[in-house]
């Protein structure tokens, strides 16, 4: 299954604005994407409650996974988003 390991670029972590932007982008993808810490159970990237519930902090590594047509493109886009400091432009 295609995966990407990516470091969270937003200093505040995956909450507030970074979390909503990430979930909105995941919702637009043609495939289901999951996000989680390496080794832990991942959550649906379209679930704001799931993503917030991970409690991921800035600088932590997360794994994005997806399967099916367009999985690679979806992962590419979402990984880039996670790596960006989304709070800086707030």
């Amino acid at each position, binding site marked *: 299954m295609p995966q990407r390991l990516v470091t969270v670029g937003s200093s505040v972590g995956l909450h*507030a604005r970074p979390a909503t932007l990430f*979930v*909105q982008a995941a919702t637009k993808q043609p495939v289901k994407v999951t996000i989680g810490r390496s080794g832990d159970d991942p959550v*649906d990237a379209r*679930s704001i409650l799931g993503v*917030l*519930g991970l409690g991921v902090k800035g600088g932590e590594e997360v794994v994005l996974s997806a399967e099916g047509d367009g999985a690679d493109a979806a992962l590419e886009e979402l990984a880039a988003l996670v790596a960006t400091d989304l709070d800086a*432009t707030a």
Partner: protein
Amino acid sequence: MPTSLQGIGVSAGLAAGPVAKLAAPPALPAATAVTDAAAESAAARAALQAVTDDLFARSAAATDEVAKAVLEAQAMMAADPTLADAVAERIAGGTDGPHAVEAAFAGHRAQLESLGGYFAERVSDLDDVKLRVICVLLGVPMPGVPSPGHPFVLVAADLAPADTATLDPAQVLGIVTERGGPTGHTAILAKQLGIPAVTACAGALALSDGQTVLVDGQTGLITPDPSPDQVSAAHERQAALAARRASSHGPGRTADGHPVRLLVNIGGPSDVQASGVPGAQGVGLFRTEFLFLDRQTAPTAAEQQELYAQVFAAFAGRSVIVRTLDVGADKPLPYLAQEAEENPALGVRGLRLARSQPAVLEEQLAAVAAAARGSNAEVSVMAPMVSTPREAREFAEVARSHGIEKVGVMIEVPAAAMLADQVLAEVDFASIGTNDLAQYTMAADRMEGRLADLLDPWQPAVLALIERVAGAGQRLGKSVGVCGEAASDPALALVLAGMGVTSLSMSPGALADVRGTLAAHTLADCQRLAAAAVGAPSAPDGRATVNAELVGVS
């Protein structure tokens, strides 16, 4: 006569009108047997969708950016696909819709709560979403701002962003809440809308619907069933105060001529009009972070010099205090290689950054000195997060080696306040950052909304430390300023002046109020108020006592 209630005045102004209370949330009825699981499930999905649509619409209509973002996040919670699945699963298992919703939210609620910090703060947003979904399912009106059909004073335990974002200032004469603090969401929004507001008002919910109350957003006093005389007297006091403030001009001084310099806080050249904020005697806090944030490489010396020169030119003939870079691990800069910290507020921030990266400070001081040489402003520098006399001395040595004559330190750390004499002996002046001083003195995170009452600058312990620093300044003949929230509260400004604080630095909008209030009181008045505030048993007591006197003096 009914007793009056005392809260924290967070948005100045007077309002008198009938009370309308925020509806209490409905109780969940007893569980019922599910006869048609498919219909029950469809109803639950429809309710989630309706709440999602409603919250997105409220977000779109909100003018306040913070409220807009919170409402959008709430809408996304209602739209969460895993939540809908969890509700459907429970209904399939025989639980009725409202109880299935309650249970599905409970799991996420516990998870967020256990994460603490920001995540735990989202719990109240999540509760609000859940309540809305259950109300739709039960067919009862959503809890929210009442619309009695006439202007009213809104009374509530607390207000959710969903409530405050769409308040109509034409209908809502005033706001009174039992919870909330001076810096909370309700306070910020009420100020923006110009609605008089009082928060942290114990006993407010005991007021009855339709009962007339007088709300004083300055003093925080709520008078139930006021007499017409009380209402007109309050209006007269307010008009007199406004007139006095409007008529004041010139440098800051008390009624008997004791000078208190009135300065402004600025965050960059864009804050400075070409005229350089008329009415201000200078800049008491020039934050330089804007130069360093949101970029991949450090600003060059030439770049810095040019921007400093712009600000100095706007304030030619006046004083400008430049604060050196104040960043910590909570806003790491990519080119500084800062390590992540568990506790950035207590970590390597402000002057402490110079321990590992002295070049950044050296370069900034060189750029300030170069820009100052080419200007007519009286330029000085100060360092943030100084804890010891030795740090003060070392900073002063570096700054003076670059040719900067006047050097000061920020006093935000209680340790520096405790040793104010020794710290001030090393430098030319000190400036007290009340927001951080309150955070560190009260051991309460500035980002933790639930502790807003502890972060109140009226906390007697915080005021006692400020008094200590001001006293040291008087003994050594050195100026001690205050920059931060506290300086822009006219009542607190009197207290600070009474302690011996020599300058107050605030947002430009607060200047006229502070100047006018100062001009109406003698130094002896200020000293009396300072003693009352420091000696008060609590922050609300001190605030109430001083505000009552403030009005009385007029």
